[in-house]
């Protein structure tokens, strides 16, 4: 008989979390292929129907699906509490899939009428179910850690970002409040990326990277500083953008605090990696490293906009597109793709082989997919990202087109590699 309290007994069932990852991977392919199709349109102001549609494909279907799936899996295991409801995520998945897909379709044709409002409302409901489920799960936590606090904080920012997004979406064609849409759109994006997504990433990284690299004995002081500074920066910038007109000197101050927080986060990551026992970087860690490196130009560009931009409209428009691309494709997507190489094989392995361990030979996690194929995808994704980013920064359409097609091929290769995991 086995004794002792083990965290896996808290793990969410396969059927609850896997649909989120399958939908996310499919969305990643659709996102990249669609981006390649509209490559010539990637210029000028970002408030364009197709760019809005693809931005929400990325944030809702790719990033949102992944985060919800990962948190349904991670929170019970890391915080050692059972998921409050295992039925809610199943309902929430379909509500979310229908709502988010509907939003993307309506953004694409810029039909912001009833269909869009219903879709946005469905997304809001699904996020609400997610937030309620995770909050009630966390209510049972007895021993809090930095990862838990980051994940809990992320729920608050998700609620704020989703609420503001719903209000703005409805208000586009059913005017009920007088607001500057572009200014509030910045707050919506800021709360989503800097608040929700970055808090999730910080929490996950503090737990997963030491676990995957066998890193022990690292001080968590930089991580705690990053947590506090990011909160001050995100809240301060939100208040300043909403009530300070978005041009005051405090904008630069709060951006500076956020930069310090991100800097501290990177110092924490560097410390974890310095004390790692597993010296070689596997395919998941290689992707994560690119994500961490990409944070540096991302934050610098953010700081540039906080102090007023370059003063040249055409240059600022290019830099805003580059900024958005860096956030979604370099910083967030590299980390997600890398962690998918860990999470998906684990989920399938756990489902198919956990009853067989000790009774018959079972594969290692890295044997669940082709590492060589993963390496090819990684190199192509890096090259394509650099090409697209370079093209956006200097206004070279050829580089952008080559880059986004490269990203599409890399996304298809990645999806194929994930498909082989399920077939294993």
């Amino acid at each position: 008989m086995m004794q002792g309290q083990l965290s896996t007994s808290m793990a969410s069932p396969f059927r609850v979390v896997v649909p989120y990852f399958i939908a996310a991977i499919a969305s990643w392919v659709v996102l990249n292929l669609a981006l390649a199709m509209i490559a010539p349109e990637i210029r000028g102001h970002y408030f364009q129907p197709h760019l809005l549609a693809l931005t929400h494909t990325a944030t809702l279907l790719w990033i949102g699906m992944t985060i919800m799936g990962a948190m349904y899996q991670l929170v019970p295991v890391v915080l050692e509490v059972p998921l409050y409801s295992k039925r809610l995520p199943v309902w929430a998945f379909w509500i979310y899939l229908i709502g988010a897909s509907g939003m993307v379709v309506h953004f694409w044709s810029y039909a912001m009428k009833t269909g869009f409002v219903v879709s946005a409302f469905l997304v809001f409901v699904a996020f609400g179910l997610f937030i309620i489920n995770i909050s009630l799960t966390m209510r049972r936590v007895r021993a809090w850690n930095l990862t838990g606090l980051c994940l809990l904080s992320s729920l608050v920012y998700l609620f704020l970002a989703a609420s503001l997004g719903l209000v703005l979406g409805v208000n586009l064609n059913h005017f009920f409040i007088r607001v500057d849409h572009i200014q509030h759109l910045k707050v919506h994006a800021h709360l989503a990326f800097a608040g929700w997504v970055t808090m999730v990433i910080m929490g996950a990284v503090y737990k997963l990277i030491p676990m995957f690299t066998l890193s022990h004995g690292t001080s968590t002081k930089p991580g705690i500083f990053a947590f506090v500074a990011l909160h001050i920066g995100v809240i301060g910038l939100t208040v300043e953008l909403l009530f300070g007109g978005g041009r005051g000197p405090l904008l630069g101050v709060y951006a500076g605090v956020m930069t310090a927080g991100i800097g501290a986060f990177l110092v924490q990551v560097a410390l974890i990696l310095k004390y790692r026992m597993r010296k070689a970087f596997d395919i998941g860690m290689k992707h994560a490293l690119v994500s961490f490196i990409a944070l540096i130009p991302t934050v610098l560009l953010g700081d540039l906009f906080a102090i007023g931009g370059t003063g040249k409209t055409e240059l600022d428009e290019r830099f805003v597109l580059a900024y958005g691309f860096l956030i979604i494709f370099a910083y967030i997507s590299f980390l997600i793709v890398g962690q998918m190489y860990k999470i998906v094989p684990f989920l399938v392995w756990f489902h198919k082989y956990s009853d067989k361990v000790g009774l018959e030979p079972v594969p290692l996690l890295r044997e669940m997919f082709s590492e060589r194929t993963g390496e090819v995808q990684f190199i192509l994704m890096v090259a394509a990202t650099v090409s697209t980013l370079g093209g956006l920064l200097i206004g070279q359409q050829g580089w952008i087109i080559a880059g986004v097609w490269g990203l599409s091929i890399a996304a298809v290769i990645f999806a194929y590699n994930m498909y082989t995991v399920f077939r294993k």
Partner: protein
Amino acid sequence: MVTKEEVMSCLEGVVDPEIGINIVDLGLIYDVTIDDDGTVGVKMTLTTPGCPMHEQIAFAAVRTLRRMDEVRDANVEVVWEPPWTPERLSSRAKVLLGFL
């Protein structure tokens, strides 16, 4: 009667599916006891609390030990004190991890 050395040798067949190194070389085994009736008790730890793969490692240890001819039953107790540290890695594990 089975010996501690035979038990440890048997446990070398239990591999962490994420790291790819067996639990003995990872230094996860703290203690092995063998009762007169052939019941084996193993006190082991895991590299970090909250790793979702680890229950399977402990299950694998129990099942592997139960397959030994001279073992009547096997119990595995997972403990967190003292916590695992990298110093517990064997030289072979350090080489495999690229540390040496």
